[in-house]
């Protein structure tokens, strides 16, 4: 059976195609202003890449904040269930999932059969999300891709106490003025993100093996900082950013 999943997030739209339990391909594109268009485009572009026709896709599930904008999907399922399904598909031993996206972070507890047991979301503010890192990378004049690697260079992270992303940016600027080292500040930024997420994770309960998903999982600095904060090792798949779309495709099989 061939299914597709489309995950419309705040920053990026993702698509994935699954065929008889195998990932045929996936794609990431910017969501931009029009969620519906983003969903259509990322899906069409992926099909083109895979040299497939839309008619060969039997079922489509949409997820993410823009899930209800994907009018051609057969069903819309929340990203909580889809991230659970995706991570379980990638590693059925997984019992805790930490998903950090553009505008929210979530922690999921997974049952041995892959269903979601409990979840918590931090959707009240951008602290601890991709948006926070974007703002900080700009403030530090750093490339977002290098940001995580730079954070690993310091053994003495600066303390950033502000909860609010905007205030934290001001705090970072004053640290720069005080002469704290660039690596220390960047490390402090990553610790701040990890601290936000880890307290939420502890509330749900963390059970190993733990997997991190979502775009921010590509940031090695956050992964390491989270490992340190939680005292566990965290698995990151190459498909971390498209995990939601993969999970949606998995859920489509069950429709």
């Amino acid at each position, binding site marked *: 059976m061939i299914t597709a999943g489309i995950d419309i997030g705040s920053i990026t739209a993702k698509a994935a195609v699954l065929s008889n339990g195998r990932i045929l391909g996936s794609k990431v594109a910017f969501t931009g202003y029009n969620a519906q268009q983003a969903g259509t485009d990322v899906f069409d572009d992926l099909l083109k890449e895979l040299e497939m026709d839309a008619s060969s896709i039997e079922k489509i599930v949409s997820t993410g*904040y823009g899930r209800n904008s994907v009018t051609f999907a057969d069903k819309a399922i929340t990203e*909580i*269930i889809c991230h659970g399904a995706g991570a379980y598909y990638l590693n059925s031993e997984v019992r805790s999932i930490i998903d950090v996206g553009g505008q929210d972070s979530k922690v999921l507890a997974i049952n041995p059969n892959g*269903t979601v047991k*409990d979840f918590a*979301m931090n959707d009240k503010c951008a602290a601890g999300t991709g948006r926070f890192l974007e703002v900080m990378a700009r403030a530090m004049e750093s490339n977002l891709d290098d940001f995580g690697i730079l954070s690993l260079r310091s053994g003495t992270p600066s303390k950033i106490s502000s909860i609010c992303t905007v205030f934290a940016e001001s705090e970072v600027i004053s640290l720069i003025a005080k002469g704290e080292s660039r690596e220390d500040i960047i490390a402090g930024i990553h610790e701040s993100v990890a601290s936000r997420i880890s307290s939420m994770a502890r509330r749900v309960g963390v059970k190993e093996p733990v997997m991190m998903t979502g775009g921010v999982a590509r940031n090695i600095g956050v992964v390491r900082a989270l490992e340190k904060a939680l005292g566990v090792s965290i698995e990151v798949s190459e498909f971390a950013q498209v995990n939601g779309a993969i999970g949606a495709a998995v859920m489509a099989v069950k429709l």
Partner: protein
Amino acid sequence: MTETDKSKGSKEMQSAGKMREIMAGYYIDAKTAEQTGKKVAWITSGGPVEPLIAMDIIPVYPENHGAMIGASKMGADLCQKAEEMGYSGDLCSYARADIACSLVDGGPIGGLPKPDMLVCCNNICGTVMKWYEIQARYYNVPLFIFDTPFCHTEYADEAKKYVQRQVEEYVIFLEGVCKKRLDRDRMEEVGRLSVEAQRLWQAVLDTAMNRPSPMTCFDAFFHLALIVTLRGTQTAVDYYRSLLKEMEQRVADGIGAVPNEKYRLLWDNLPIWYRLRWLSEKFAAHDACLVADTYTSSWSMSLRYTKDEGSFLDSMGEGYARAYINIGVDEMIKIVLEMVDKYDVDGFVMHSNRSCKPYSLGQYDIQRAVQRERGIPSVIIESHMVDERSFSESQTETRIDAFMEMINQKG
């Protein structure tokens, strides 16, 4: 509240029209009290109203008014006005809305009538003490503070004596303001009517034990008004007697509030007053019925402590002191688990209400206990009950959808 979806059978309860009529009459009486020579007392929602009824004083509830403000979506503006006056945005949105309302005569009924006295019982929180002190200064009227010590697990002897002493002082206070004695026979009659109304209210809530449930917690939020405001009157008894009959008829006819009731849920904390229809439709679309809640049942919880012997005045203290949010979290957990079993509930929806610290503090512990003891899932949604600036629809929708998908997965 149940005016939605007429296509699915008789959704609007007949009693609803009667309730609106009674509440309209009640507020008109309150606003014209000066002309009719009656006294008006502002009282907190958990305060001892029976002596007021017995003294023929009209009780007015700024908190009930706050709910009306929320339901009319006038909360954000009034709360903002209070902030302009210098009150913190973190304060209870009932308090902020009421304080601003007094100044501008805002809200859906043009403001509350000026009080002749204020009665503040802190069994619901400590904020009410400062709120009522503010209003006492503003209106320059006498204030009675009824101090109910926190009951962690028990109602200690010292607390009992302390509370009983205040009941006596309360009567003296009322007699002083009204310049007349309390008729003790009338007091017993009012006490009897109060207990009867509470029994009827609990019986109404108990009809939700049926499958399908004839009502949802959203109906309960609406029908709650009289047991809060006019407890101790014949009006309240008559109303709940007829509402009970209507519910029992719905049960006999197999009419469910949610047409395809598949999941039964328990609600915790106060309502999100400005989003009741949205919440009701959202859950109904998932075939979920919120069969019970910890809030509306609080007004019949004192039945646990009602004694058949002795005078009402002698025994009412314990019921007031042991209000649901004046007891320890362990005790709250016991009550929640009781309700989970009694109403045969599949999931727990907890409203983390920024406006109510005593109700919201300890919610994570309660959540954990419910998960551990009953294995049922729960979801937490956040807001300020009357200030819609703190509510985020998209985020709340995601949480509710994910929660229902989780319950669905369990099968």
